[in-house]
């Protein structure tokens, strides 16, 4: 074949036109959700940080401006880390942080302990049973979270179902105080977040190749050894995803400690809420929020990483 000289077409600036929307619509498709998130997610975030650095004053809004015009006309930036120092110094705050982590951690462990065998049982059921069981797990997830917490108020109250039952069986003479105790908070969190543990675990265990277990058994491993050396490591991504899905929101939980824990529960979400709505100390509330976020940023990033790998999205 004779090489002939033909003027080259203008080299395309487009990397690949294989993606059909990669034309004039690309900009619009990205810009709309992008702007929305910048305006309603990113900027609010910076406002929180800004206010956490301000001084609480009695005014509306109840915080000082960070930017001040000094007398000679220069713009002065006044940063106050007082609010953070306050969180550090006041025992109430850091104890509440520690308590939130403790509660969330223990609840996560218990959810994992209950959820793992449940997820495993669902995977091992027949297809019809499996569909029914899955719906049973998902159903509470779609029904009102608030009402399911409320249901426990009726069970745990002094005159509630559980106390009545225990007295009727003659196990106790006097009602035990259960509502408005830390116990109720633990119970409420485990109850509310159990489906969040089961579903990622189910998705992960379902993908597990059962031949592996048979192979391990054929090689002479006892069931417990098989579980520890094959099943558990293979389902670790599901365990991590499920645990984070319980741990992260549980740490910042507000409704459960407020309704079930009453005045005796010290959780960070509740503290933030009352600092803001009852004490009207916005700068401290903002500082509490930032501190909570710093606490959760590692688990949150870990979750995104696990999630991205499961969905297959490259980030």
């Amino acid at each position, binding site marked *: 074949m*004779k090489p*002939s000289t033909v003027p080259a077409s203008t080299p*395309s600036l487009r990397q690949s*036109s294989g993606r059909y929307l990669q034309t004039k619509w690309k900009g619009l498709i990205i810009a709309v959700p992008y702007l929305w998130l910048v305006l309603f997610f990113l900027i609010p975030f910076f406002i929180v940080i800004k206010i956490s650095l301000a001084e609480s004053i009695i005014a509306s809004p109840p915080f000082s401006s960070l930017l001040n015009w000094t007398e000679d006309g220069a713009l002065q930036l006044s940063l106050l880390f007082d609010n953070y120092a306050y969180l550090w110094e006041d025992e109430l705050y850091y104890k509440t942080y520690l308590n939130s982590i403790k509660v969330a951690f223990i609840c996560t462990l218990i959810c994992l302990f209950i959820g793992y065998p449940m997820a495993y049982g669902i995977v091992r059921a027949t297809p019809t049973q499996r569909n029914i069981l899955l719906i049973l797990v998902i159903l509470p997830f779609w029904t009102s979270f608030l009402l399911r917490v409320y249901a426990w108020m009726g069970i745990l109250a002094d005159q509630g179902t559980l106390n009545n039952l225990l007295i009727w069986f003659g196990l106790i003479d006097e009602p035990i105080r259960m509502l408005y105790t830390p116990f109720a908070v633990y119970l409420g969190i485990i109850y509310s977040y159990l489906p969040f543990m089961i579903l990622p675990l189910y998705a992960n265990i379902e993908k597990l190749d059962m031949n592996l277990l048979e192979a391990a058994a054929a090689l002479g491993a006892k069931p417990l050894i098989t579980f520890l050396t094959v099943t558990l490591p293979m389902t670790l991504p599901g365990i991590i995803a499920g645990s984070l899905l319980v741990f992260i929101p549980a740490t910042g939980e507000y409704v459960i400690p407020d309704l079930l824990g009453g005045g005796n529960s010290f959780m960070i979400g509740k503290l933030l809420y009352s600092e803001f709505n009852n004490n009207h100390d916005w700068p401290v509330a903002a500082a509490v929020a930032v501190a909570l976020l710093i606490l959760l940023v590692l688990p949150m990033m870990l979750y995104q990483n696990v999630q991205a790998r499961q969905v297959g999205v490259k980030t």
Partner: protein
Amino acid sequence: MSTDLNDTHRPWLDPKQEPFIKIRGVTKRFGDFTAVDNVDLDIYKSELFCLLGGSGCGKSTLLRMLAGFETPTAGNIFIDGEAVANIPAYARPVNMMFQSYALFPHMTVEKNIAYGLKRDGLPKKEITRRVAEMIELVELGDFRQRKPNQLSGGQRQRVALARALVKQPKVLLLDEPLAALDKRLREHTQYELMNIQDQLGVTFIVVTHDQEEAMTLSTRIAVMDQGRFIQTGTPTEIYESPDSRFVANFIGSANIFQGHVITSTADHVVVRSAQDDTLQFTVRHSAELAQNTKVWVAVRPEKIRMLKDAPTTPGPNQLAGSVHDIGYLGRLSNYKIKLDNGKMIDVTHPNQTRPTSGRHLVDWDERVYLHWDSASAIVLTH
């Protein structure tokens, strides 16, 4: 197909013929990676042209540039005289049949086929007529109201073909058209595809990694590797006269001996094996080669005769060895012969007689003598 040697069927031999598709200096880079490297190619009207190569050789990228899904980094493509490099896919007189068939899952067979015509804004009557015609051509009359997931693999393939052909494109691009079918259906569909192409006279460009498919289907084949054409020619040319060791090995298999030219005359060359001084090959060859040129002699396994008795007269192209392995394939057997100098040679023989009492013509470890005609081997210079 290529038994007819009439020149109207071989337009590429006629310098007065204007190629229908001209690819000129086309390069495609993705970042640092060069997928297609400055290629030129002419394809003539009504050809069934195959781009053949392994995965990542650039054949699919070239096809996608023809379809308009990729823009060449440099160079241009002309279809029927029109430069198309910057025309978007939806405006090109070209249609494509995808490897996955890419049928619209939410549309019936009929709607799938009609989609392209609707985009052209044809009158309803015309659309109905042409869709009906196409459905008849690909024999899908009973399935016109079915959705793709209610069809078998072979039926889906035919819907994809009909959908691409109904717009009467100037060129039909087929990306691995048979890869998703099982072996039996593949053979049947191969001939169906050829018949349809013959009937409609549309130029087909087929991308495939399957050399057998390329050999059966095409008028000409371009063998690609690392973004370049290695050799272009009819199936017979490519198989019988490969011009490089790569092509000789890629299309079918070949026994290759390295050596040096001892004498070269107008019609043959004599080559001495580099591995074994006592071995000499005589090969009929038209081009003259200088003495001592480093060359490779290639012989196809089926062109080697295998005998149990030693030849009575010594001559060129004679080898001896013992049977190392036998692969029985039914209609033929593959033998691995270990030569006395240790080299392994592949020999293929048709099983023309039934083995008596379960024993084959030759047995393991049996001594055999190999020989081939000087016209059966070829000399390769690279």
